[in-house]
């Protein structure tokens, strides 16, 4: 049998399956691209099922059902069942809107192992404002109770930013009340919609330090009850994050229309053609596609990454951030203190100091032109 495996390339650990871009929420930091896929462009049940079979054969161990809101897919139970039968560990990443006890019971029966529930705030009014949906916050209590009653482990994912960091202690307390086993306190990562709304969301240094201290104290106080994972914002970093654990090293992402990406934001990069699941198998794409080869390992690096002793720790940081901020995806991530572009982050922090809390919600159509009007232009 011909081995598809390339030299020194490990199989991926996890697949992010973006089943749809449809979502009842309109969060202004949504990680979906500015150009959202339509329902009519989504992969069908049979194709997703084949993708899960190929993923398991390739060595993928976990699949994260995501979106958009995966619950809007009518075939979600069937897809979960297919992935679980193939040996994949199935996580559901959801806002919880539209989840009821009957559907959850079917998902559990199909093999769902874990639910990650998004949380926009501790208070209903600002929570609903971020979500862009009245009543969104209320559903979190109902859905968390359903998940716990079903015996599934619950992660609460709280995205934090300048407008809700003042309530971080309440957010942590709410996660405990909701029965979470695990809480992700995730500072907004500034790509796509969030980058467009950066000035309204980026916290101050003081807010960040206070938040970090609150998380440290809560970790000690809640040890054994609540596991807290903390994602810090790049804009105050000294070293860049090891984005996705390195390009094409750990993760792959399949978009609603079937493009295979090394990360969910990679489509923003110019000059790369990402194959679809209809064109090649996941294994062929993972081991042999030009797009996955492009930034894999260290050979693509220029200085200061090329000779850096941290080059196999952070893998040059994030390609999408390098491109979004410098216009060149092959440059060192500006989050790195050694980057010649590191000052760009200081400019963004400065811009956020005086900005109003107004943001634009994610939405279909004409987004980029609308955003150009609303995003303050930095000098």
């Amino acid at each position, binding site marked *: 049998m011909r081995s598809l495996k390339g030299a020194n390339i490990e199989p991926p650990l996890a697949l992010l399956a973006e089943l749809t871009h449809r979502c009842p929420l309109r969060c202004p930091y949504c990680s979906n691209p500015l150009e959202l896929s339509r329902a009519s462009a989504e992969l069908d049940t049979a194709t997703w099922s084949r993708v899960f079979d190929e993923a398991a054969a390739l*060595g993928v*161990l*976990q699949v994260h059902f995501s979106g958009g809101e995966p619950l809007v897919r009518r075939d979600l139970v069937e897809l979960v069942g297919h992935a679980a039968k193939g040996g994949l*560990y199935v996580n559901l990443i959801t806002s919880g809107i539209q989840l009821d006890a009957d559907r959850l019971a079917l998902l559990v029966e199909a093999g769902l192992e*874990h639910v990650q529930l998004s949380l926009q705030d501790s208070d209903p009014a600002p929570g609903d404002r971020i979500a862009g949906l009245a009543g969104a916050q209320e559903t979190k209590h109902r859905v968390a109770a359903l998940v716990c009653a079903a015996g599934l482990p619950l*992660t609460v994912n709280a995205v934090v930013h300048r407008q809700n960091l003042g309530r971080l202690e309440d957010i942590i307390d709410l996660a405990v009340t909701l029965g979470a086993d*695990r809480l992700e306190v995730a500072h907004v990562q500034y790509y796509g919609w969030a980058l467009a709304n950066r000035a309204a969301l980026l916290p101050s240094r003081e807010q960040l330090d206070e938040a970090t201290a609150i998380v440290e104290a809560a970790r000690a*106080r809640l040890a054994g009850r609540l*596991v807290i994972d903390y994602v810090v914002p790049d804009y105050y970093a000294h070293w860049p994050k090891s984005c996705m654990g390195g390009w094409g090293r750990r993760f792959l992402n399949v978009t609603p229309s079937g493009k295979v990406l090394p990360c969910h934001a990679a489509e923003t990069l110019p000059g790369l053609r990402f194959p679809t699941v209809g064109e090649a198998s996941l294994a062929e794409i993972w081991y042999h596609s030009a797009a996955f080869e492009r930034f894999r390992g260290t050979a693509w690096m220029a200085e200061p990454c090329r000779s850096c002793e941290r080059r196999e720790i952070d893998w040059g940081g994030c390609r999408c951030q390098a491109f979004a901020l410098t216009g060149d995806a092959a440059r060192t991530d500006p989050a790195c203190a050694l980057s010649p572009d590191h000052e760009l982050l200081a400019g963004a922090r400065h811009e956020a100091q005086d900005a109003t809390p107004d943001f634009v919600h994610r939405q279909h159509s004409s987004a980029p032109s609308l955003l150009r009007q609303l995003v303050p232009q930095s000098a």
Partner: protein
Amino acid sequence: MNTGAPRIEGGAVLRFAPHARFRFDEVRQAWIVLAPERLLLPDEQAVEILRLIDGARDVDAIIDELAGRFDAPRDVIAGDVLPMLQDLVDKKVLRQ
């Protein structure tokens, strides 16, 4: 109030949490632990320890077994085993 994680003691009987999976992966030819949004790739020594988590043996018995198997002082083995098991309890991969 510092509730703290329950500290495991020698008499504790540990088992994998209901949604943690410890299994052999044919693709990698290696043992793995799968848990909610966590993936652990235990080294050889950790695999030896985890294979003794059977919901019957207590922690003392696991240490005794490994000390005998590797002909090593019991306190040396305990120094490896206890922190690892405590870490997995803290991460909710194992429970008492």
